[in-house]
């Protein structure tokens, strides 16, 4: 899936672990882990919540790149 993210970087800047970040945006630690690894694409609502918590725009955390084969 060509969706990349910088969540781990922004989370580290805030000094939060995955569980704390999950609690702030209303999801489990495992979901934050899945998003960071790129195994799960969050909904628009969750992406906006994460961006708001990090104090940046959604585009700064999540980026979509077209696959070369497409």
């Amino acid at each position, binding site marked *: 899936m060509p969706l990349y993210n910088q969540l781990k970087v922004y989370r580290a800047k805030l000094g939060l672990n*995955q*569980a704390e970040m999950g609690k702030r945006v209303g999801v489990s630690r*495992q*979901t934050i*882990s899945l998003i960071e690894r790129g195994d*799960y694409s969050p909904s628009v609502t*969750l992406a906006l919540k994460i961006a708001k918590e990090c104090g940046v725009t959604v585009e700064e955390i999540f980026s979509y790149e077209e696959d070369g084969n497409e």
Partner: protein
Amino acid sequence: MSKKKKLLRDGLKLLLIGVLAYPLGYFVGYGAGSIGISELSLDFIMDFINENLIVIQLALIVFLYIPGVICIRKAKRYFKQANQMIDVEEDIHEKKAGTFVYVAQVFTRFFMILFTTLIFLSLDLTSDNMVIPQIIYVVFLLLAGMNEIIVVRMVQTQDPTKKGDPISLKFNNDYFLSLDEAEKSKVYKASRHTFIFMEFALIGLMFVALILKIIFDQGNGPIIMITLAWSLQSIVYFYFAKKFDS
């Protein structure tokens, strides 16, 4: 490809499936009957179950119930270790606990299914030998039910956002509603795969029921039960498909 050609192609595919399936059904059914194996009986299975009922019950307890209990204990231990970890990131203990919870649920579920099937198969109210197996059944079914509750409570203690009273009839719905979007997505995927699989499985089971009728003289009971299950699944599916469409 034009619509007409597509329709023709699909029709030919269905015809081909029918042409291949018909002789198969014919040979299994009428073929088997004509060569005399319609006299085969499944009575020897029932005789074996009736003669060894308590031994089979004990085997199910040893191979399914006890491993389930062991897995619950291991999960409890790993959850405890996970809670003692300062770094909660990518916690290996939590993952191991999750695996043991999953395995415990699988063991407990199959124990309950097979234990119930066994007692239903052997249920004979005229027999005096049924008292002890029935007591064993009730006690261990209760214990297995308790294990399911223990597992849910353990998960809820670890993650207090997970709601639902495991004894309540609304538990599945309440628990599902308390999941986050990624967890719900997993449930959707599992449900979709289960539904697609069951559509094929029911056709397969209907075929097995036909063989049971023709070869083993088991009557129309299995066919009727599978028809009911198939119809019920279809009715529930169409009901919710319409409900969520509007």
